[in-house]
């Protein structure tokens, strides 16, 4: 009769320490252990090591430790967002996320162009115009345009498309087409350069 295999030694050692597991000990193993002194001695050594391991308790940390551990973990993940699986595609390389800066740039350019044309046509007035009661001078429009541009750029830089509309950064349907049709050659050229720059930034 062959000696016990490692699997069987494990079963025998666990069975020696646990009656529930002893019940599952293979009949052949049990019979072999009855007759083979070498395997019995080996199984006893393995059971001794197992028993020593079971008895080795670990020091219990201070009761305050658990609160500290929780707090450190909370702090560590505080600035991380969990990305649900359905949104994970946005974080994949070469995914649709790469369209976001382009779409943002188009929307931004459209908003600026529409605003500029409306200013030029006198359909909206800057705060300074209301005070003066007349159309703004070229200099004041340019200065305010620059500030508006900077504000829009800084806000749009970190704004996902899905948040842009609720934030009031959307452009009415068809407004961009109409605005582009009214643009001067210089304005079209500037818009083209802007789009090229954004496309270059996105790496496409």
């Amino acid at each position, binding site marked *: 009769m062959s000696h016990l295999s*490692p*699997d069987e*030694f*494990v079963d025998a*050692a666990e069975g020696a320490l646990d009656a529930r597991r002893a019940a599952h000990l293979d009949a052949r193993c049990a019979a072999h252990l009855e007759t083979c002194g070498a395997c019995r001695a080996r199984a006893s*050594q*393995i059971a*001794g*090591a*197992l028993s*020593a*391991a*079971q*008895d*080795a*308790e*670990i*020091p219990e*940390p201070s009761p305050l430790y*658990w609160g500290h*551990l*929780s707090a*450190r*973990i*909370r702090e*560590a*993940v*505080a600035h*991380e967002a*969990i*990305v*649900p*699986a359905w949104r*994970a595609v946005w974080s994949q390389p070469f995914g649709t996320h790469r369209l976001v800066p382009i779409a943002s740039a188009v929307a931004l350019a459209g908003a600026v162009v529409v605003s500029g044309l409306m200013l030029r046509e006198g359909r909206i007035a800057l705060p300074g115009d209301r005070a003066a009661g007349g159309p703004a001078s070229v200099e004041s429009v340019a200065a305010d345009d620059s500030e508006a541009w900077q504000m829009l750029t800084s806000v749009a830089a970190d704004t996902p498309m899905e948040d842009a509309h609720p934030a009031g950064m959307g452009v009415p349907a068809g407004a961009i087409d109409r605005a582009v049709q009214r643009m001067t050659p210089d304005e079209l050229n500037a818009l083209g350069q802007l789009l090229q720059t954004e496309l270059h930034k996105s790496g496409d």
Partner: protein
Amino acid sequence: MLTRTLSWTAKEPGCKVTVANQTDAELVQACLAGRREAFDTIVERHQRQVYQLCYRFAGNHEDANDCAQEVFIRAYRGLKTFKAQASLGTWLYRIGVNVCLNKVSAKSRVEALDPLIAASDERTASHDESAAETLLRGERAAQVRAAIARLPKKQRATLVLRVYHDLPHDQIAGILGSSVGAVKANFFHALNNLKKLLT
């Protein structure tokens, strides 16, 4: 404004009363829905088991502390990949074993002695029999922990999960990515080596 206020109130610490009674799977769903306090509950529920797993691997509090924190940070980042069919505890064990196998090397600093033992000479002499027995048991436990920390990584992982977390062999096989036969063989060799290290 009212909606905003109500939404904020729902995330106040008192809201833990509701998440505390949820199952692990519900807590994961709550986390994915953006309820960060649900993850706090997951941590509170599992941190002891995870810490103990890490301590068994590392053999000292400092490394166990670092590993336990790392386990939960990785779990948070990977929560979207958690499959509800599996137990969250088993999933955390899997992360814990990976963290420990990567971070805790065989040369890891292992406690030489329990704090109880460190300054015990004169105390042993002046204490009664049960105190001496306590110290001896503590010393023996420290020796066993140090021996376990010296086992090869897979053997250590198998022994820790089997002996201290009472996981069945097939579950350990799932965590370690091996077969039941390999787990049993590793366990056998772990106990053999432990016996040698303790004699």
